[in-house]
């Protein structure tokens, strides 16, 4: 290979990186330009009609879930880090399991459980008389409950990690200076946890404002649901674009807040005189009370819903209603997710490689641009991609290609987050050695870089694959007509209240989410 060719390769790689980043960033740019260029009359109309209600609903939901997850997350983290009781190690792991439940699955289980004639009402009527009702799941309370139970592990994980890294000497000093125990919690421990908690809460808020599954099944009007309704109910998409832009701004705020505070939460003094707090053993009564508390939360957020899904799934199998159509949905999901994950890895590789190996400003910028998918909640991403395709590549409209593009844009960021560290761990000297021994750039990548980063890349692939399996709103809006996936089936059956029929795909999704969770935790368990 000539010197000129060696030079040309990185240049073409840069070009590839810029192209990929540009393509990934395009939907976001398009939706912004569309919303900005929408007639002022549409803005005024929406401002007078939908926006105030949606703002209020979204903000109060985010606020309620924030309070709920804060209380649950911090108290649970405190219990498993600072106290010693039988089964502590089990709970430490078990409490993250609710993350395997997509919001639409939990929402559908709760709309059955809390619904009229549901099990909770039966129990309640025995206590409070036959005419009494429990609160409706299709309400603010219902949406807050479901979203809280689904997202508290995010706060729990960050609070737990922060507590583990907290130097106990701060608290001891406070103690020596005469603070009461409660005083220490509120004036020393919690302020020290603040960055971690704000990061966790921002993540929760990002989840809440981007969520479509729960709010649509519980018929709670937020921006994502409104965008979906505009897209399926109107001929003109300009109003959907306006609502989308507001949603993007929300998501961006929470994403940046999360990044900012997560970085700040790492500036603890953890070296030198660092000592971890000793775990305080609990008596019999204390242990029993803690177990009841943990068990209730774990039962509501994971165990009972999972058992109910299992029961319904077994009943469906026993009735023989689990037919070949079901395996068709499994195949559709697996095929789509497999292709999308592969495409995302192929496209993400040059970005991650350039940003870690040649961290010129342009390359890092490309990587940042590829994170655009994070601030494009499902329905918004779907809207942007739908409009882009129908304008520039209408022959692909209504094919799975458009859906795969949506998946790649949406989930590439999660993949990049796994691929980047894998590349970072590989020291460039190995590559330099290969080059100095006469290997070409291409050969170095093939023989040195790829084999060494393979593990991280496979992890990223699995992660994207499983996220795609769960994806609901974009699939619902962009799938070829009649092309259903597991997630779509859960939603369709559940929204018609065929609870039992929705169970087998839902159960399968929960099972498949387990390995993704393990991968994420393997990355974050210690450091979070």
């Amino acid at each position, binding site marked *: 290979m000539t010197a000129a060719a060696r030079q040309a390769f990185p240049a073409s790689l840069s070009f590839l990186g810029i192209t990929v980043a540009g393509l990934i960033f395009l939907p976001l740019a398009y939706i912004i330009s569309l919303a900005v260029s929408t007639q002022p009359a549409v803005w005024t109309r929406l401002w007078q009609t939908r926006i105030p209600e949606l703002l209020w609903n979204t903000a109060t939901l985010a606020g309620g879930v924030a309070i709920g997850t804060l209380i649950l997350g911090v108290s649970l983290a405190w219990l498993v880090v600072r106290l010693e009781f039988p089964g502590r190690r089990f709970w430490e792991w078990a409490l993250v399991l609710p993350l395997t439940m997509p919001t639409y699955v939990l929402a559908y289980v709760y709309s059955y459980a809390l619904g009229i004639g549901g099990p909770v009402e039966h129990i309640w009527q025995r206590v409070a008389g036959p005419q009494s009702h429990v609160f409706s799941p299709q309400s603010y309370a219902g949406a807050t409950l479901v979203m809280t139970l689904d997202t508290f592990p995010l706060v729990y994980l960050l609070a737990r990690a922060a507590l583990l890294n907290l130097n106990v000497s701060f608290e001891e000093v406070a103690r020596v200076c005469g603070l009461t125990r409660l005083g220490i919690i509120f004036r020393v421990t919690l302020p020290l946890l603040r960055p971690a908690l704000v990061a966790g809460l921002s993540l929760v808020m990002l989840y809440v404002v981007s969520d479509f599954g729960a709010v649509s099944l519980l018929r709670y009007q937020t921006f994502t649901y409104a965008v979906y309704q505009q897209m399926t109910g109107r001929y003109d998409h300009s109003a959907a674009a306006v609502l989308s832009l507001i949603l993007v701004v929300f998501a961006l705020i929470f994403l940046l807040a999360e990044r900012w505070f997560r970085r700040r939460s790492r500036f603890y003094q953890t070296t030198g005189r660092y000592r971890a707090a000793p775990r305080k053993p609990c008596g019999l009564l204390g242990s029993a009370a803690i177990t009841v508390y943990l068990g209730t939360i774990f039962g509501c957020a994971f165990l009972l819903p999972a058992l109910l899904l299992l029961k319904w799934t077994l009943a469906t199998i026993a009735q023989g209603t689990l037919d070949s159509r079901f395996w068709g949905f499994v195949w559709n999901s697996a095929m789509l997710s497999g292709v999308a994950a592969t495409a995302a890895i192929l496209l993400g590789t040059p970005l991650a490689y350039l940003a870690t190996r040649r961290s010129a400003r342009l390359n890092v910028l490309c990587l940042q641009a590829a994170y655009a998918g994070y601030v494009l909640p499902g329905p918004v991403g779907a809207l942007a991609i739908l409009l882009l395709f129908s304008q520039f590549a209408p022959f692909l409209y209504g094919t799975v290609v458009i859906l795969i593009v949506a998946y790649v844009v949406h989930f590439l960021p999660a993949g990049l987050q796994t691929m980047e560290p894998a590349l970072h*761990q590989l020291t460039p000297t190995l590559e330099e050695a290969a080059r100095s021994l006469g290997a070409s750039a291409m050969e170095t990548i093939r023989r040195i870089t790829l084999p060494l980063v393979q593990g991280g890349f496979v992890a990223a692939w699995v992660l994207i694959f499983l996220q795609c399996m769960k994806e609901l709103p974009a699939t619902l809006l962009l799938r070829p007509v009649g092309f259903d996936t597991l997630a779509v089936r859960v939603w369709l059956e559940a929204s018609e*209240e065929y609870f039992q029929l929705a169970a087998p795909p839902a159960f399968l999704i929960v099972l498949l989410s387990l390995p993704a969770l393990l*991968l994420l935790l393997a990355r974050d368990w210690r450091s979070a």
Partner: protein
Amino acid sequence: MATVQHTFLSSLVHRSWFPLATALMLSVIDVAIPMPATAADRLVVYSGRAERLIKPVLDAFQATSGVQIDLLSSGTTELVNRLHAEGERTPADVFITNDVGSLEHARALSLLQPLDGKMFDGKIPETFRSPDNSWIGLSGRFWIVVYNTTLVNPADITSLFDLADPRWRGKIAIPNAGSEYLQAGVSVIKATHGDQRTQQFLEGLKANAGTQVYGKSSQIVDAVAKGQAAIGVVNHYYVYRHLESQPGAPIAALMPDQQEGGMGAIVNAAGIGVVARSRHTDLARRLIEFLISPQGQKMFAELNKEYPLNPDVPADPALPPRHSFRTSTVQLVRLGELREPTMTLIERVGLR
């Protein structure tokens, strides 16, 4: 932790996962791009009508005619958007919906082609066709009030406007604003009573419904049967279908606005049109001929307890006889042009 994970995962896959994955992707993309239908006697039907309600009829046509039918079911508005976006490349030959407003909108976008009116004389009344026969109604559907017989005295409701009365606060279930027949219903009210009165009505309805806004009308009837809501606004067949599967359910249907000088029950129709770009116009015409024949009409209407439009075909005996109630005089063809202003009104009121 990280190293453990890497070796574990590396052992799972063969070294050459990269080319393998690429090959897989290429092969799937190959499958993903649909081939244009090549067979000569094949019709692609886009249907906004639920698959359960249309497939048996199309199967019957396929069996008698030998024409292969490819059915794509989806939301009505989504399908109009889709036909529009696909433009000249659309594979669709025929478009079936449950809402004349959407058909008329498709006609206005030049997505449908006019047919020869003689074909329908004596079979489908002119009021249920577009003036140039670009679309043809197939069955009639009425907007009615469903009420829980243990919770409501039917004498309290004579008009849809009664539902805006604050006495029903929290007791009414309504379809969401994306529902095409809610939009059609509001269009008719607006054309009959004007903007202001319609707006007041919708505001009252919205306040009374609260959070009971449903995506599916079957859920509304279900909610009324369970007593979760006392009253619902739905198309008539949802009630009769529910009563057929659960004869003891405490629900009944009520035809509103029957008083002298009243608006009359709001009518809409399921209908069909031939897509402008279709290359199988003859086959499409044969399908339509089948659907307006006594046999086709009977099947089409009975599957969903709707009213056949062919005057020679009697309606399901469980339904109130067609001439026992008065219907709105607003022409169906106006539903197309009324739709945008109606949507603006619905949005101004803030219906979901």
